């Protein structure tokens, strides 16, 4: 099966391991990821703070490219990119004043009016809906039995639920289902749908780090050994940034945080190194007999 693929800036930059792992498991699952032609940054979370019409136009440009490629669905591994495209398309459809401004911008860029013909989806929605949990389970060569994984969703994947639409904003289970497919034990925790604080890193870092620490502590308190999340930007906040968190809160523990496709990749038999993981995660997995 072929799917239009929007990697997003982070997964082609310092969250490269998100892209590495996603590409690896997609290959195994016969998913051909067709990168969106000449895609641009969606400006998720920041460009709409500056100018809503510019933000919507940037996102619709990507969706128009997908349409030109002949697809009606665009998958992305990043919750913020997903939210950005979905919210932009929704505003374009429902806000006539904004639409007028956006249409002019698209026209100036020699583009057509957007006809809402492309659905943005998270890569994990494609895994669940198109590939199927059973099919994923068939590819598991190394069941991760006995490892307790905190299942984190964050904010942008779920909310606003009337726009995102895949699952309940308060009782989601997509990440849990995928973790269970790898043989690991999914652990639900109270803060599984709270924000990791990443958007505040650009204006109020102390509070941003506190929020990240709340997530990690909540998962750890419920017995998680590791954390799995579905977002390139959560990955920046919860993986390497843990060093900062440790310093700020004088903490002597770490909770290795993996992107969901990294965990699936482990169960498919790839090594932590092949999946681009950070040293902390590699070392922890080694202590659990996985290398």
């Amino acid at each position: 099966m072929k799917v239009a693929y929007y990697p997003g800036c982070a997964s082609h930059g310092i969250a490269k391991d998100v892209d590495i792992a996603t590409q690896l498991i997609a290959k195994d699952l016969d998913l051909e990821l067709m990168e969106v032609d000449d895609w641009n940054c969606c400006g998720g979370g920041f460009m709409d703070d500056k100018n809503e019409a510019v933000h919507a136009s940037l996102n619709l440009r990507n969706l128009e490219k997908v349409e030109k490629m002949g697809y009606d669905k665009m998958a992305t591994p990043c919750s913020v990119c997903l939210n950005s495209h979905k919210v932009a398309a929704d505003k374009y459809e429902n806000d006539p004043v904004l639409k007028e401004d956006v249409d002019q911008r698209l026209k100036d860029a020699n583009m057509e009016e957007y006809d809402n013909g492309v659905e943005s989806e998270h890569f994990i929605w494609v895994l669940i809906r198109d590939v199927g949990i059973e099919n994923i389970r068939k590819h598991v060569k190394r069941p991760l039995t006995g490892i307790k994984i905190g299942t984190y969703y964050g904010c942008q994947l779920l909310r606003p639920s009337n726009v995102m639409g895949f699952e309940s904003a308060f009782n989601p289970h997509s990440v849990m289902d995928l973790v269970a497919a790898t043989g690991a034990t999914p652990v639900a925790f109270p803060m599984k749908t709270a924000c990791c604080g990443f958007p505040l890193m650009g204006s109020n870092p102390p509070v941003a780090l506190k929020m990240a620490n709340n997530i990690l502590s909540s998962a750890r308190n419920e017995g998680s050994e590791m954390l799995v999340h579905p977002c390139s930007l959560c990955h920046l906040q919860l993986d390497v940034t843990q060093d900062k968190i440790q310093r700020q809160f004088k903490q002597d523990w770490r909770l290795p945080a993996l992107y969901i496709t990294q965990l699936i990749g482990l169960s498919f038999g790839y090594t932590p190194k092949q999946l681009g993981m950070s040293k902390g995660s590699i070392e922890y997995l080694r202590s659990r007999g996985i290398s």
Partner: protein
Amino acid sequence: MEEKEITVNIKKYNDKDGAFWKSYKLKADKYTQMTEVLRRIKSEQDPSLAYRASCHMAVCGSCSMKINGIPSLACRTIALQAVDEKNEINVESMDYYPGVRDLITDIDVFYDKMYKVMPRLIADESVLMGENEQRMTPENQTEVWKFQECIYCGLCVSACPSVKEDEQFLGPAAHAKGFRFIDDVRDTKKSERLDLLMDSAYRCTSCYMCYEVCPQDVQPVIAIKKTKNYLDQYKGNTPITIMARKHDDTVENLIETTGKIKESTLFLKTFGFGEAMRDAIDMLKSGKFKYAFEKDSNVKNMNEIKNMMGEKK
């Protein structure tokens, strides 16, 4: 009408005994609201049960609580739709606010935040003297309409992760109210309002929790984002807005010049050299420093991007 027996587990609270759960059984039909469930429990089983409710039609904003962990208005929640597979419902008071008794919380802090944003129209003197009319266009009215629909139920503030960690954040409801006047052409205090709201706006983490729980579809997070649209008109400088300006300008500039964001550049320009170096050391230790040099191709057709980003309004 077909009725079903349900079990309602209520987290009760008082100063003497602290918090404890108590269960009640009663029958409900497909129209029974949770406010009616609570009324029946109080009048038929437990007169000591304390809760607030008044209009039963999502107008007064009194019956805010957590139902099955979800911040909700009890009157808008139908009991048989809320039960789980065992026909049980869990009811607790809202998060964040101090408990008074059972489901009643003290939401003074909500009103304090509301009061801080001057939640009233300050019209021009000539209008007050009867010399001029108050006028606004239908487009302008549409823009502010949504943000004035708040019923002061307090759910958004109770669910907001930033409010809990940051006392200086005014919270979703107050921001929606404040923005409603920023964008109202009849108001005369725009610059004062920007002074009140801009620093706080950048304390919002844009997690859409307020949007999700609001029973009136006020979408406070959108009001906060729209407030940030006015950053160029804001004359003040706080540590938060200085950093936000650097960050957002760098994001815009990177997209304008390359069509994409490069985080390593963004970190350097936002945090400055010292902090960015500390990040670099953390990345080195984690074995991920190599990703800072990942070089993605720029957008090829940059004219499209530039033309889309040009000033239109």
